[in-house]
């Protein structure tokens, strides 16, 4: 009961946020719309007992990534609203067509019965933070440690790209 009510409230909120993100002319409204969607998705995770994923969703996506977006938007200028001129004439009809195709695909895929795997999520695969901790540090230890490599790549890559100053590269007319 509670789940159903929550699903409808936040489902509508998520769709509203997604549409306003694409629709808004002001980039700040776009960012806020995206944040609403992210937050609504976090609520879905909670109602599916994915407490850890919900926390990650709020901390990383609604928190850090959105801060990054707002950072960039504020730097580029809040006042700049996006021009609605299309570079390609068939862009908008094509988008509508693809949306129709997507909806048709979802409806067809959703109404058919597909064979799924044997392991149904039971009580022992409940996504509580304790279980995530156990899984992460025992079975999924290696991917977890490799994530550290990924973060080194991200840091070194960001620094390498951001640290360029004109004249830094020989052999180029800087």
């Amino acid at each position: 009961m509670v789940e159903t009510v929550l699903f409808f409230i936040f489902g509508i909120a998520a769709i509203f946020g997604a549409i306003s993100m694409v629709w808004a002319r002001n980039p700040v409204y776009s960012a806020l719309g995206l944040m609403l969607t992210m937050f609504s998705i976090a609520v879905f995770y909670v109602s599916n007992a994915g407490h850890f994923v919900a926390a990650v969703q709020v901390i990383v996506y609604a928190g850090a990534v959105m801060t990054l977006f707002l950072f960039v938007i504020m730097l580029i200028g809040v006042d700049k609203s996006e021009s609605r001129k299309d570079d390609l004439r068939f862009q908008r009809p094509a988008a509508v067509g693809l949306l129709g195709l997507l909806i048709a695909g979802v409806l067809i895929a959703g109404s058919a019965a597909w064979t799924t795997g044997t392991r149904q999520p039971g009580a022992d695969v409940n996504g509580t933070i304790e279980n995530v901790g156990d899984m992460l540090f025992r079975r999924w230890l290696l991917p977890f440690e490799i994530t550290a490599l990924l973060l080194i790549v991200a840091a070194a890559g960001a620094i390498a790209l951001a640290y360029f100053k004109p004249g830094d590269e020989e052999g180029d007319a800087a």
Partner: protein
Amino acid sequence: MVGNLDILAIAPEIALTAAVVVLLLVEVNFDPHPRVWGGIAGVGIVAATVLSVFQWVEWSGGSGELAFSGMITGDGFSAMAGMVVFPLAGLSLMSGWRLVTEMRRRGAEMVSLLLLAAAGAHLMAASANLIMLFIALEVFSISLYVLAGFTRSRADADEAALKYFLLGAFASAVFLYGVALLFAATGSLSIYGDPTIYEAGARGIIRADAGIAAFLDSTIILEPGLLLAGIALLIVGLGFKVTAAPFHVWSPDVYQGAPGGITGFLAASAKVAGFAALARVLTVALGANIADWAPAVAVIAAVSIVLGTLLALAQTDIKLMLAYSSVAHAGFILTSLVAGPAGVAGMWFYVATYAVSVVAAFGVAAIVSGHTMGRSPLSSYEGLARRSPFLAAVLGITMLSMAGIPLTTGFVGKLAVFTAAADAGYLWLVILALVASVAGLYFYLRVIVLMYFRPTSDDAITPRVDWSSGIALGIATLATVLIGVVPWWLLNLLNDALPF
């Protein structure tokens, strides 16, 4: 909980990570000469290669082991991937060393990213779990995105990196969606399963995981929609990385825009890692469903061969020509995969030797048109034989090998993959590939004609070959010829390099 076997399975990665950590810390603390970076990176690459050889001695031809609770394999396949990828990274680093020094201080990051990309590439080949494969894929491809845009003073390098990043991120998302659908269809993310059952956690025992292959072997799936969609998305995601048509659209821009010194590594390592991952996922995890994916792979191979060859015919820039020809080569390599496990040895031979050739070809292009530069019009190769006989010889032999002329590795590779495909009953694909190979002669031989039979223009500069590129190009050419003349030992060796 972490045993010796686990450590051996990721020993090359440990060596490379240690090299990167030392390199970055030494760089920021002591501000050393670029030679020091080279030394540290060299030690890391040599150590990783030696450890891969050790893995090979330990595991080749054996029944294969799983490490880190079924996350990663120890078998001849993963050891062979290391023995291909790490020397390749070393060759690329040597032939691109001018670029590293020209980046001044940012060269340290360039070397680090190259080492991490090599580690990611080997992990992709060794992964026994689709999530592990995804993280390895991300380590590998994010390093490559940054490397593609390293020269910030050229707008087309920025464009190349941005295109590569956006399309690559999209392809990764497609791949991840495929993984999710495959999980939904089979109830497992593990290719081989997880033999270990852990002690009781807070909510009871974590159940053992039989793995995708075992599930598909033992189950008749009546409504395989989810499974088929998952397989399709996996093939699309990895097909993007190996530049198979029609997922190749990024490659010409990236190969032409990326800094010349690193393009060879971008092209070669993506092929090796992508095909290794594709081979393991398709032949092992989805081996029971070969009837489902082999026709799709055959069609992608055919489209790649035809499209790559036709578009390469029209190019006037050697890097664009190499980019489209790499699409065609992706098609040739895919040809071997339609044979399932029987084609894996041929795939290895083709992919390893092609990777060496492509590093050599882009290495020559980098010397002729500048290590930081992108464009490399064919006109600047006119009369190269008179200006630099060495470069002309390297590029000439590389072109002959790519064209598939006998006594080069390219011929043996084509022979191996075509035989595998013909044995699997894909005769139409083999005939198509043979016709395309003949058509491909035109644009490979055109380069040789330009270099040897055209007068050099008066204002053409004489390219200077630095010693490190010279050694790298020499090794690559020597390997192409030697293995091309006596390929049997390598072909025999590769029969042990199958995924278990």
